[in-house]
């Protein structure tokens, strides 16, 4: 209920006008950009998986870092372990773990009856 002495005035009804569409940016260019970015990222990931590590190719491990630079941000590579082939050296500041050398399993001695020629 309205307090006494106050007339409530109602606004007159507005005439019905057609609703104007909201102006929005065209999504197609962004979709295209995202699509290309996705393709590039997928390509970089596939390259990293399929391509052997640089160490296998007899190339320095820095090549792996080069692959990472080419990739988009979502496919950032962190090289933790690289198997070094004989003769290769580790990158600077790399932590190197030694793999235990297996004992040779070669039979070079036989026990036999004495006097065998």
């Amino acid at each position: 209920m309205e307090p006494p002495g106050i007339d409530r005035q109602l606004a007159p009804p507005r005439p019905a006008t057609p609703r104007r569409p909201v102006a929005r940016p065209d999504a197609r260019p962004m979709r295209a950009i995202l699509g290309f970015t996705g393709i590039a990222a997928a390509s970089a990931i596939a390259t990293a998986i399929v391509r052997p590590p640089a160490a296998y190719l007899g190339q320095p491990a820095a090549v792996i870092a080069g692959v990472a630079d080419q990739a988009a941000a979502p496919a950032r590579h962190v090289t933790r372990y690289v198997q070094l082939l004989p003769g290769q050296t580790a990158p600077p500041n790399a932590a190197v773990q030694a793999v235990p050398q297996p004992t040779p399993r070669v039979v070079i001695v036989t026990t036999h009856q004495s006097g065998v020629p």
Partner: protein
Amino acid sequence: MSVAMLAAPAAPAAPAAATVVSVTAHLMGGRVGVHLRPGAVGSADAAWLEGARVLRRMRAWADRLTRFSDSSDLARLNAAGSSSARVRPTLAAVLEWSRRASQATGGIVDVTLLDARLAAEAGRAPGPGGADRSWEARPDRRGATIARRPGLRFDLDGVGKGWLADRAVALLDRHRAALVDADGDVAISLRHGETWRIGVAHPTDPGAVLATLELAGLAPNAAQRFGVATSGTSVHRWVRPTGVRHHLIDPRTERSAVTDVAQATVLAGSAAEAEAFAKAVVILGSEGALRLLDGPGLGGTLLLTERGEVLATPSLTRWLA
């Protein structure tokens, strides 16, 4: 994303990690070898020199123990006509071991059967038997005095080879792995984690092995010793008009042992023990040896019977490769 690979050493590998240095010579009527896996403590060249030095020591010991040289300590003892003769420390030590081996095998190992062996080799009828073969060693600081009836002669044979192998490998304990092969009687010293494979040669098929043992050093803070030895009737074997003879003389009959075992290989804690028990197993036969094979200190036995069967005691299976 990580490139997950195994890390491999960038630093140089342990020097000569897989290298085995071997020095061999013809000694004691057969091939003797010293085999070393030196590891980081020394170069391969230094190991080779050490192996050669040990071989020279073995030759010096063997020269005192052989019956094929008139100048050896053993030959002088056998030639002594008196009932008492002095011997130097090396021969005294081997004779002392032979006494303990005889006790451990119920008298089957007996170093006083030279005449019976020579008779078997020549195809002669053995002597009447029953002669007194008892002897006694009285040790002192410079050897021992041996007392026996005049004319009793000794033949150390394999007893001496096993003893020599043990004595030599004791000089090589500092190496990661060391092995001394005294013509088939083998003494091994292995540091923790080290292994060594030893083939058991087939007696009649050159190059073939009946089985392969893979011994492993299991003692955490010391070199672990093993001994492997093989004895049999198929090498020193002679076909004479009087029958087939071999060199393993049964002290109960003073004749070549009648046995169903063609060859026995024993794994023990020393080459001397392995040699003594291998000989005893052949002489006693597969059934008669059972009580010996359950004794303490034996790591296992592999038998080749005259029927061609290859039998292993259960305790040996853990060492079969």
